[in-house]
């Protein structure tokens, strides 16, 4: 009995995985891809990878909050597209890029707030509510864009507009700075403020949280607003990078964001997870995508591989939860 006690104290796989599992998985993946193709480690490729990751990571930061409450947001891709289209139209109308971006982000927040109201006051299940708004926002994007990309000289010849998604600062793509900035802000918000503490409480036991003075409805609305806002920020990067707003931008982006959150060790039941894990989760997905492209794996197989990786992560997580 004493022996068992000792070993328990020294090494617990469950503990280890929940703390460092995602990070170890990322490192193993990087080593593996590097061995298979050296050009993966080319600084240019790595920077490119980070730029690709930034869009998914931003959405995932918002999704982390949502999933911590035990909810889900399927409308993030549609919000990205609709807010991107608004911004593009504003720029074409001659609105300064900076202001157009701000308006786009705020609209994203408003769409998110709408999700929040439906869930908090309408008592709609998050899955259903955001499935409905996913379709509505997507439809609105098609109506607004008349089904065609919004683009023009005012976008493609506009340094300020293009810098957001295409620019470099000290040799590093600008979207990477945005990702890092919002990671820091999201980290502080989740782990250092009362907003974060209430998010965990809400996901852990909503009734106990309410009795302890948490205003559940208000919290839910703010959290979905945050998710909408961050999706719109991602939408700004995408629109700027392509110098056009595509009506079908961001389709299925919610899947990669949810996958990043889950790969990062956050429980879909809510109440448990870390912002750092989600960042790592987004990087894992980025390395997978980039690595498989470098290795010339067909995009059909890529989907299968990604699906398997997510399954393995979830199964490992289940095992740990039981232990």
């Amino acid at each position, binding site marked *: 009995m004493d022996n068992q006690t000792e070993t*328990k104290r020294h090494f617990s796989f469950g503990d280890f995985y929940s703390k460092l599992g995602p990070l170890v998985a990322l490192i193993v993946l990087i080593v593996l891809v590097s061995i298979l193709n050296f050009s993966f480690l080319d600084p240019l490729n790595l920077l490119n990878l980070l730029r690709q990751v930034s869009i998914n990571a931003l959405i995932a930061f918002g999704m982390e909050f949502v999933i911590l409450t035990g909810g889900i947001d399927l409308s993030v891709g549609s919000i990205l597209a609709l807010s991107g289209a608004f911004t593009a139209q504003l720029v074409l109308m001659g609105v300064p890029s900076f202001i157009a971006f701000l308006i786009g982000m705020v609209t994203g927040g408003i769409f998110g707030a709408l999700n929040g109201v439906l869930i908090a006051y309408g008592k709609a299940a998050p899955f259903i509510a955001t499935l409905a708004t996913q379709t509505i926002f997507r439809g609105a994007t098609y109506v607004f864009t008349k089904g065609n990309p919004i683009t023009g000289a005012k976008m493609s010849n506009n340094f300020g507009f293009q810098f957001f998604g295409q620019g470099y600062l000290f040799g590093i793509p600008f979207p990477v700075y945005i990702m890092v900035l919002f990671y820091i802000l999201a980290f502080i918000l989740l782990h250092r403020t*009362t907003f974060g503490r209430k998010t965990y409480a809400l996901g852990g036991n909503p009734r106990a949280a309410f009795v302890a003075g948490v205003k559940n409805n208000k919290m839910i609305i703010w959290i979905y607003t945050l998710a909408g806002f961050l999706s719109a920020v991602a939408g700004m990067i995408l629109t700027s990078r392509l110098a056009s707003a595509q009506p079908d931008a961001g389709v299925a982006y919610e899947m990669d964001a949810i996958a990043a959150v889950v790969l990062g060790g956050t429980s879909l039941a809510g109440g448990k997870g870390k912002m750092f894990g989600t960042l790592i989760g987004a990087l894992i997905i980025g390395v997978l995508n980039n690595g498989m492209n470098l290795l010339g794996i067909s995009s059909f197989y890529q989907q299968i591989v990604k699906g398997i990786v997510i399954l393995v992560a979830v199964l490992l997580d289940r095992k740990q939860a039981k232990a």
Partner: protein
Amino acid sequence: MEIDMQHISKAFGPNVVLKDVNFSVKGGEVHALMGENGAGKSTMMNILTGLLEPNGGSIKVDGKETHFASALEAEQHGISFIHQEMNNFGEMPILDNMFLNKEIKTRFGFIDNVKMKAIAQKSLAKLDVKLDLNQPIGNLSVGQQQMIEIAKSLMTDAKIIIMDEPTAALTENEIGKLFDVIKSLKAQGVGIIYISHRMEELFEISDRVTVMRDGLTINTYNTKETNVKQIVHDMVGRDMGDFYPDRHPKFGKVMLETNKLTREGVFKDISFSVRSGEILAFSGLMGAGRTEVMRAIFGIDKLDSGTITVNGKQVKISNPSDAIKDNIGFLTEDRKSEGLILDDSIADNIDLPSIEGFVKHGMIDRKADRDFVNLLMKRLTVKANSAEDEAGSLSGGNQQKVVLAKWVGSGSQVLILDEPTRGVDVGAKREIYDLMNELTDRGTAIIMVSSDLDEVLGFSDNIAVLYEGKLMGVVPTATATQESVMTLATGGEN
């Protein structure tokens, strides 16, 4: 059948739960198992029924060394376990719940509802329970569900039945029925292991009693040859003195006053007041509306009319957050679903209502926050390895102390305690009473809702009695008797 457990030990990681346990039961006897929460009773029963592996020791069934690999295997050998916490599917009919995974089938492979119903009804008839078995089990009260649970074990051919706190949710009447059934089972040669916190039941129903403490079996007595004092002494490891501490209240000004609080169809015109330093008990039968009044005061449920005055100022409370700002705290009746976030740490539970007070430059000042938590844990003697332990890992009494710490920490001047000692063992009970004394000495006003009439009479200053949503009267505890309170609680005039 005879079961003999010898030198059983069990540890979860570094936590040694059972050190050396000896326990036996034979057909035709009721063997009571007593012990505080955390003494190891449940672990021992889980080992007996194959839910847990022991680390050491032996289990002999009729003299033969036996080992059950699963709960199902134990059940097939005639050992049935009536759990305290029921795992029912609320939306499913009673009948389906009773036969879950044990459905009887016709020869064509379809479920034989007729036969199942007949068997279920026969078993329920022994308990004098008449119910429509097609209604969802969620419609039943906790007590009724407990009766169903007991009926389930009667359907099996059990030789040994383990009952874990079977009467916790039952009415006097239902308890009477249960005891009749226990006596008849005994006569049929069935052995019963009876786990309870209620001392008087044990003397009424058991033949032998074993007391556990800290993972050890302290003593086994023939019930006839022992007494309450001895058993309590064994349970807590010392003499308890008087069970309820004395009250020496010094009343101050009125802290909370309600005027004609009404929630349509639930309670009507509830007016009362509680002073600084006072413990005002709320008594009444199940469903009298005690908890409902408190939930409305605290802003969990809506009031239709009436006003609330706190500390001389009329206040508007539309949610718990408002109530907390007015320095009201509320320990809810249901600790697990409303009192605690079981997966979160003790610290995160304790500081939740006070968390806004620890914000410095927009962020939580972690050091101040943790100092606050540690101080409260020490003051309320919460027994845990560290403040970072999950709240769910604590025993019932310690969980209750964490909830109390939450509200003491939030600076409550009016503390509403709904069943503060339910599911709490004897030692922790006394600690909670002592703490309530300390709080009222410092000027807190306490409202204590309790179904335990002994507690109401033994540890309060005034007693408010509700009957069908109406306040029948407030009587000084010093002059109240069991009879006078019960008369009011059943709608009679005093």
